[in-house]
C-alpha cells in the first residue's frame, strides 16, 4: 500500500507558497467546498486525495481562478499566493494563470502542431525575443516532459495525432513552457499506461526542484510515491492535511484511515 516517498530529497521546511483561509465554494446553492484552510509549500509536491465528488478539482481550480469561467460558481474566503490575495480586484486572472499552470485530467492539446502547442504560452506572454529562443524553450519543455525523443522528428505534425499518453505529456510540456511557479495537475495520469505514468511521476519529482506542484490523484500509491504533503478531502471538507508519510502510516482522522485502507470511497 505505502511506498516510501523519495527519502533522499526529504521534506525540508519550505516557504509557504499558497495559503487558503476559510475557503467556501458554491455552485449555485450547493456548497462544494466548506471551510478549507490549507498551506501549500514552495518546492513541494502536495497531493489532494479523496472520494469522487468531494471537491478536489473544485478546490484546485480555485487556485488559478479557473472557476471564474463557471457562471454559477461563487467563492468566499481568502486564497493568497506569495502573500498576495489572488481574488483581490487588482489581480489580473490572466497574469495569475500564467503564474499558476494547470494540467487537466483529459489531455487537451490544441488542434495545432506539436511545436505550436508548446510555443503557445511563451508566444502570448512574449517570453521569446526571436525564433531561436522560442525553439530553445520548446525543446526544453519537451525534454522536461519526456516527450522530446518521440516528438523531435515530428514537431510540425498535429498534437492531436499523438497517443493519449503522449498528448498528456505534451500538455505538461505546454504548461511547463510558460514557466509557472505553481503547477496544478488534476489526475494527470488517469489516461496513461504504467510506463507513461512512471515518466510523469519522474517529471513531477523533477519539477519539485523549481515549482510547487499540487496533484489530484485517485491512486493512493501515486500520492504516496510522489508527494511530500497530502490533503484528504471528504464531502467538501478538508479532513486531514499533513506530511504524506504521516497520513499514510498514522492518520489522525478515522475517515482518512477508512479511505486509504479502502473502506470508504
Amino acid at each position: 500500500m505505502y511506498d516510501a516517498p523519495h527519502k533522499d530529497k526529504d521534506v525540508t521546511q519550505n516557504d509557504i507558497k499558497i495559503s487558503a483561509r476559510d475557503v467556501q465554494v458554491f455552485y449555485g446553492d450547493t456548497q462544494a467546498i466548506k471551510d478549507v484552510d490549507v498551506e501549500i509549500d514552495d518546492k513541494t509536491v502536495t497531493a489532494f486525495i479523496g472520494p469522487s465528488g468531494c471537491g478536489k478539482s473544485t478546490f484546485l481550480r480555485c487556485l488559478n481562478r479557473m472557476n471564474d469561467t463557471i457562471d454559477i460558481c461563487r467563492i468566499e474566503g481568502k486564497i493568497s499566493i506569495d502573500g498576495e490575495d489572488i481574488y483581490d480586484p487588482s489581480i489580473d486572472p490572466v497574469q495569475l494563470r500564467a503564474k499558476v499552470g494547470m494540467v487537466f485530467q483529459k489531455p487537451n492539446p490544441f488542434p495545432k502542431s506539436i511545436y505550436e502547442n508548446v510555443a503557445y504560452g511563451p508566444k502570448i506572454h512574449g517570453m521569446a525575443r526571436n525564433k531561436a529562443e522560442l525553439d530553445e524553450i520548446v525543446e526544453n519543455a519537451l525534454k522536461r516532459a519526456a516527450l522530446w525523443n518521440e516528438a523531435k522528428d515530428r514537431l510540425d505534425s498535429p498534437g492531436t495525432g499523438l497517443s493519449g499518453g503522449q498528448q498528456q505529456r505534451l500538455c505538461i510540456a505546454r504548461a511547463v513552457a510558460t514557466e509557472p511557479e505553481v503547477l496544478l495537475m488534476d489526475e494527470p495520469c488517469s489516461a496513461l499506461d504504467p510506463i507513461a505514468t512512471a515518466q510523469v511521476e519522474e517529471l513531477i519529482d523533477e519539477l519539485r526542484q523549481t515549482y510547487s506542484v499540487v496533484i489530484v490523484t485517485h491512486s493512493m500509491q501515486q500520492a504516496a510515491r510522489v508527494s511530500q504533503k497530502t490533503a484528504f478531502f471528504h464531502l467538501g471538507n478538508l479532513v486531514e492535511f499533513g506530511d504524506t508519510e504521516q497520513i499514510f502510516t498514522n492518520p489522525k482522522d478515522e475517515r482518512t484511515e477508512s479511505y486509504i485502507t479502502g473502506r470508504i470511497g
Partner: protein
Amino acid sequence: MTLAPFVILLFAAFVGYAINLRAAQAIRADGVRLHSLESFHGLFSLLMVIVPVLTLVLIWLAVEGAVIDALLMASLPAGVLDGLGSGAIQLIGAEIRSIAGGRVFGTPDDWKLEAAERLIGYRQASSWLLIVVVTGVSAGIVYFARGRVASGFRARQRVERITLGLMIFCAVVAIFTTVGIVAALTYETFRFFQMVPVTEFLFGLNWEPQIPIREDQIAAEGAFGAVPVFLGTIVIATVALVVAVPVGLMTAIYLNEFAPHAFRKTVKPVLEILAGVPTVVYGFFAILVVAPALRQFGASVGLDVSGNTALAAGGVMGIMLIPFISSFADDALSAVPQSLRDGALALGATRGEMMLNVLFPAAIPGIVGGVLLAVSRAIGETMIVVMAAGLMARMTINPLDSVTAVTVQIVTLLIGDTAFDNPKTLAAFALGMMLFIATLVINIFALRIVRKYREIYD
C-alpha cells in the same frame, strides 16, 4: 363523389383493424401465446388495405381523365374532326368539357351537346366503377388479412416490413423527382446548345436575348454570351458576402463567448426569426430603403448612383445571410470542446486570444462550410435581385452600377407568352443548368468540409 373512394377505403382499413384486433384478442383469451401483440395484427390489416388500395385509387384518378377523353373523341360523329390540327381538336375538347360543366357560350352544335351528355355519363360511370372496385378489393383484403391471424403469424415483422417499404417509397419519390428535374433541365439545355454554340454561351461577352418575333421582322440576332450575367451574379454575391461574413462571424463569436447568458438567450431566437423573413420582404427593404439612401448619399458626394445597384441588392442579401452564417459559425464554435477553452485559459490566455488562436482555428472547417453554403444561397437567391438589381447585362464589376443576375435573367426570359422552341426561352434552362452545377459543386465541397470537421471531435 371523388371523396367517396377515400372514405370507403379508410372505413375498410379501420374495420380490418378492428376485426383483426378482435380475432387476435380471442386467440389470446384462449390462453394461446401470440407471436405478435394484438395491435400488430390490427395494423397488419390496416396497412394491407391502405397501401394497395390507396395506390389503386390514385392511379385511377390520374389516368381517368385521359381515358375518358380518348373515349369521348372516339365517340364523336364521323367527319367532324376531319382536317383539323391538334390545337383545334384540343379546343373542341375544351369546349365540350365546359358545356358539360354548365358553361354554355353561344349556341353550340348539336353533336357537341350530345358529346357533353356522354362525357357526364362517362364520368359518372367511372366514379361508380371506382367505388365498386375499391369496396370489392378492400373487402377482399380485409378477408384475406383476417385469414392470416394466427398465434404464430409474425404480424410485428410484417408491419415493420410494410412501413419500411413506405419509407423507401417516400425516399425514392424525393430522389426521382430531383432526377427528373435535372433530366428535364439537361434536355432543354441540350436543345439550347443545338441553337447556340456552347462556346458563345460560356465565353461570349454580350447578353441580348432578343429574337425576331415574326419571321420577316428585321431585328438584331440575339446574343447569348452569359459572361456579363454571371459577372453580375458574382458581383452581387461578393457584396453580399462582404457584408455577411464579417458581421455574421463577429455576431457568432460575441454570442458564443462574450455575451451574457441572458443576452444570448434573447438574441439567438431573434436571429432565427430574421432567417425566416421571406426574401420578398428583404426585396422591399432593398428598393424602398437601401437603394434611395444610396442614391442620396451618392448625390451628396457627387457620384452618379443608378437606381438599381449591385450594392443595394448585394447589401440586403448580405443582411439576409447574416443569421445563416452566424448560426453556422455558432454551432461550429460550440462544438469545440470546453477542454480546449480551459486549456488556453489555463495558460494565461485572455478570452480574445483563446478565441482567435484556439477556438477559431478549431472551428474553421465548420465555418468555411457554412460560408460556402451561404455562397450557394447567394448565387441562387432570386427574389431580392429580381426586385433590387437591374435587367441590363453589363460587363462591369463596379457595385454602384446596375447589374443583372443569372436568376433575374431566368425570370425575365420566362415571363410572358413563351414557346419552348426558341433560343430565348431555352437560354433560361442553360442559365439554370449553370447555376445548378455551380451550387452543386459548392455544396458538395461545403458538406465535405463540414463532415471532415465533424470527424475530429466526436
